């Protein structure tokens, strides 16, 4: 059964599909912080029947879409220093209040990129630890420490095919045991007390293929219905 599966035939989720899948798991009324990179796409895929409020840690609750060309304001930016807009009902605040929201557990979900995630939910996403790298952490550790649900949104492996989901992170940690769920181009994986449990696979992707690309034990936790698909 498994032998018919060839890695090159895997139908991966696109980045937009990954982002849409994350958006589907965010409840109406949630306060959400989106990391820089692929996580930013989540904002564009919120289901029409839901309203979520986007927080950016540099001091804005109620981030709107990108401004029209020529309407950019260099003093209205997000944590990635990109120009944004503010929705009606937005609020500005200073950094101590902004990180009080994060550290105090008021933000429901953050969606972060990852260099590595461990079997126990450790996250490494701020430094390669190389000797001449310029260390730069920003708000990543605060988000890990304070946000209620930490979702990782990342390609399943690096561009060179190296595993990102591992037994133990080799890169410097951003947080210990903080990741709740991992969304990749191949699978959705929960981090649980019983280890990593696959909840869903991209269409056509086989469990064994994901297992091969994962550096930590995976349990197949898909519902029977999903198994059949």
């Amino acid at each position, binding site marked *: 059964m498994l032998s018919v599966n060839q890695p090159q035939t895997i139908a991966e989720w696109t980045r937009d599909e990954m982002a849409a899948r994350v958006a589907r798991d965010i409840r109406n009324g949630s306060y959400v912080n989106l990391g820089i990179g692929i996580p930013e796409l989540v904002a564009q895929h919120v289901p029409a029947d839901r309203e979520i*409020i986007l927080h950016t840690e540099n001091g804005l609750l*109620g981030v709107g879409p990108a401004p029209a060309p020529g309407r950019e304001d260099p003093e209205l930016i997000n944590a990635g220093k990109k120009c944004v807009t503010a929705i009606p*009902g937005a*609020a500005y605040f200073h950094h101590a209040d902004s990180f009080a*929201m994060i*550290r*105090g557990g*008021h933000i429901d979900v953050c969606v972060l990129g990852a260099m590595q995630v461990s079997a126990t939910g450790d996250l490494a996403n701020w430094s390669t630890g190389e000797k001449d790298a310029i260390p730069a952490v920003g708000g990543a550790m605060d988000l890990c420490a304070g946000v209620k649900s930490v979702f990782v949104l990342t390609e399943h492996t690096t561009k060179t095919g190296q595993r990102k989901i591992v037994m133990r992170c080799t890169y410097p940690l951003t947080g210990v045991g903080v990741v709740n769920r991992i969304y990749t181009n191949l699978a959705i994986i929960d981090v649980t007390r019983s280890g990593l449990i696959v909840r869903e696979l991209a269409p056509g992707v086989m469990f064994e293929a994901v297992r091969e690309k994962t550096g930590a034990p995976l349990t197949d936790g898909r519902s029977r219905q999903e198994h059949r698909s």
Partner: protein
Amino acid sequence: MINKRYESPGDAVADITDGATVMIGGFGEAGSPIELIHALIDRGAKRLIIISNNTGSGRVGLAALIANGQVSRMICSYPRSANSMVFPELYRAGRIELELVPQGTLAERIRAGGAGIPAFYTPTAVGTQLAQGKEVRTFNGRDYLLETALHADFSLVRADRADRYGNLVYNKTARNFGPLMCMAATTAIVQVRKIVEPGELDPESIVTPGVFVQRIVEIASPEQESLLVKEGRCYP
């Protein structure tokens, strides 16, 4: 659509149960959420731990909640005032506990609770009775006390205006503890004079961003505590 509006104070406090910790805003009557407190009296939850700067006056509002025997413990800075008889009576009778906290320490402990800071050091009260039992630690040659964060299950707050997201602005010195208590409670319940459309509150001037607020109730013409006291009114 997000809409944090509740139709009545009664609806908004309906799940406050016996033994809950409840922060109540206000400095004296300024900012005291009197309709929410009265709804809590109607609700009848008992053995409440109340965190509030004062203990109310006359027989309305917070004083009435205490008089009604619903409060087992007060955490406050100033449980005395010109028209405060209820708390002193119960306190002298040993029927209510008091944790006295300096006002600034009270404010900072509440902020800490909201900001995910479990504890901090402060110079306030070093060498006084209120330092008894507290850890003292020296930084740069000066002594400080360790103080821990305060959290609550609910907070009852009064603001001036809100939008459906729970963004708040306050009126003058009625702001006092409101923004902090909204941060520090699992469920912050706020009565406002008026609920406006999103965007009507200037995003530069919002004092409490909606993320800190779970429920809002419009009370267009709140009772004025000092007038009720002057008239000798009792609640219920």
